[in-house]
């Protein structure tokens, strides 16, 4: 994968075959000419015109904490902490939220970084860990990164500058693959990429449909106001990793943020590199979790908010993505790798409503 930048800003990418000899400059230029979209030229024009819709670029008066919610992945965490401790501007606080720890390995890794504050959260679940981070932080903004991601040095500053607008409650960033070493990682990047384009986009809760948040980014790379819990409510602890729902906690929050009339910004200048799972089995598990999480989230919206709009979304998803898969299966065609992912996703979707209902039954608290 080639990533194209203009004065540091990522403006596009291309997938090209690479040999051990690497790529000659002419091939890179040719790839750029072929793959760069008009948004890339717009970035060039903005630069030439010294025009930045964010206002005074790079100026932020906000204090920030970076929270890393993790569970038993010390090697990944070490890499993430190396990146987070190199951020410029540096966060005022760095929180490692050790979610339902089974060993002391996470604590030991955190101890190697003097600036890091280690917090053990005994309750299992990513959204519990996120909520713990919001309670522990004493800053204006809390930025979240996954424990298998490595934010670039300018990541935090790029997120923060967007909070100058008081209506912005959440900012997500551009997440690129840290490595594409295995076919499974390539498959994941091709079909489940975190990339949501290379142009900044503002989602306005007053105008945009709060249910259409898939294009808004992901919780692996996001920052929220510390007042989130007071203004919108905390993350729903019945959702996301560590629960039967397996995911969906970030998008449920995005929907709630927009429904409350706030804004959410997708900021591609905030770049983080995410290490995708390496085997097809792992990737299938992740994708299955996405299907479960989305349907669990929608079940919650349907049952508790009586939001019928999720039925339309479910139908559209089924019609355009899953129905063709079922047709393939019915014709006994051998499933391609992509179809295997879609199958995992579909099975996850089927499991979603039950997952949400069982989480509710065991009495996990909503936000």
């Amino acid at each position, binding site marked *: 994968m080639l990533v194209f930048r203009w004065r540091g800003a990522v403006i596009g990418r291309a997938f090209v075959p690479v040999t051990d000899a690497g790529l000659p400059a002419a091939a890179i230029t040719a790839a750029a000419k072929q793959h760069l979209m*008009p948004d890339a030229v717009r970035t060039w024009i903005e630069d030439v015109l010294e025009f930045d819709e964010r206002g005074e670029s790079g100026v932020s008066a906000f204090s920030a904490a970076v929270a890393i919610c993790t569970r038993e992945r010390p090697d990944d965490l070490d890499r993430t902490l190396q990146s987070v401790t190199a951020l410029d501007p540096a966060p005022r606080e760095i929180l490692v939220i050790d979610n339902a720890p089974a060993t002391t390995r996470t604590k030991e890794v955190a101890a190697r970084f003097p600036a890091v504050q280690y917090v053990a959260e005994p309750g299992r679940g990513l959204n519990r860990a996120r909520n713990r981070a919001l309670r522990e932080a004493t800053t204006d903004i809390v930025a979240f990164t996954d424990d298998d991601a490595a934010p670039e040095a300018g990541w935090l500053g790029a997120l923060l500058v967007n909070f100058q607008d008081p209506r912005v409650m959440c900012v997500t960033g551009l997440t690129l693959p840290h490595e594409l070493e295995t076919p499974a990682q390539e498959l994941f990047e091709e079909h489940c990429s975190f990339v949501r384009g290379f142009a900044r986009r503002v989602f306005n809760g*007053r*105008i945009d*449909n709060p249910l259409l948040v898939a294009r808004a980014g992901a919780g692996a790379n996001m920052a929220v106001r510390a007042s989130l819990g007071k203004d919108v409510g905390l993350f729903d602890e019945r959702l996301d990793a560590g629960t039967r729902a397996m995911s969906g906690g970030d998008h449920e929050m995005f929907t709630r943020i927009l429904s409350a009339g706030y804004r959410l910004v997708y900021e591609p200048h905030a770049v983080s590199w995410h290490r995708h799972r390496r085997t097809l089995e792992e990737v299938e598990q992740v994708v299955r979790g996405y299907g479960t999480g989305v349907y669990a989230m929608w079940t919650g919206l349907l049952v508790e908010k009586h939001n019928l*709009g999720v039925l339309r979304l479910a139908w559209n998803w089924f019609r355009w993505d899953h129905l063709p898969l079922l047709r393939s299966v019915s014709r006994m065609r051998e499933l391609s790798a992509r179809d295997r992912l879609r199958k995992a996703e579909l099975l996850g979707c089927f499991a979603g409503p039950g997952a949400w209902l069982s989480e509710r039954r065991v009495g996990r608290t909503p936000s």
Partner: protein
Amino acid sequence: MTVRPALSIVVPTNGRPGPIRRLLRALTRQQHAPAFEVTIVADGVVPAATGVGDPGAWPYTVHVVTQPHAGAAKARNNGAARAASDLLLFMDDDVEPGPGVVAAHVAFHARQSRRIGTGELVPHSIHGGTIGAALCGWWEVMGDALADPRHRFTFRDVLTGHCSMSRRTFDEIDGFDPSLRCHEDFDFGFRALERGFDIGFVRDAHAVHHDDSDLNKIVRRKFDEGIASVQLIAKHPRLFRSLVIGRPVVQGRVAKMVRNAAAGQSTVSSLIPPGLRLGMRTFDALSMRDKWRVSLDMLMDHAFWSGVVQAAGGSQQVRAIREQAGPVPRAALVVDLAPGLERAERVIDESRPHALRVMFGEHLVGELEDEPGAERLRGVHLRPILLKGMAPSLAIAALRSGLLPEAFHGVAGHAEFATVRADTGAGQAA
């Protein structure tokens, strides 16, 4: 000894005691404010219905003036006539000023007197729901534009709910026109710009607009806007192309049918609003925000054109209005970007043109037509015009001039740029 107030605040009201008390209470919390007075103009209601109570009980001077019901424009004129200060601040009764409003408006006019200051109105919908969110969204989009220091102000930007000006400015513009059904702010803004006054955004004047509009009220308002548009065109023919009546907002076959039905005022026409309202309820329940929005726009369109037809006296007359020739455009200033952006901006600042023809050396980048009712161009407008209105052609001009980095050359083949190549073919040939 009575201190002459530095600011006179004029608030028309037709009997909403709760909002008036909220506004007056907010004015007791002003910070760093010089002496000011408030004139409540009771439009068709008795003073007791205004909610002021005992005027002497407030920590600043409060006057209550009454008039037979004649509308907000007349009420503002009456209030201005009785103001003791040389500086006027108009506010609607559903506005809640923040603590810095008085000081911000006074400071704004201390720097330059020949301008109108529009303050911020942070929207708050009392009824909420999807319609409330849409309404707030509309206000926010407008507020964001006004707050942008590169915004080109137009006749729409004098928000009579929260704006200030010197008494002299108010008198030179001849006050508000009470004969208009609504849009007296548009009329005032147009006359202000035509007479050489500037409009500016008063950055620290924050106020909350507690909007009690529901769908019925919005539809009625749109109907009134249709009537007012006909009145405005009769008064200012130059505004024709700048108003919705000259440039329909909603396009498409169904939207056109709705508009024609409104013009025809047939039985079908009377069935359209309830049908659209039913559709809106359904789409709202299904969270189909885009379809809901389209239905709302068509409902608004129907109300607007019904108002237009009523004011014009029939659909034939509407057709005659719509087929009238637009105003003769004023000449464009030719600016060349090749010697540098700063130089181009200086040239624009020196000429303050109504229209622009932007070149990059021998290559045409684009043309900005004369827009009646918009302020004369300033240099600060150039960059947003280039970015938002001429980006593809600017890229093509840069490509032909050898300034576009090679990596970007591929986008010239993109569909977005295809029409640009044709438009600027003359430049390429040259």
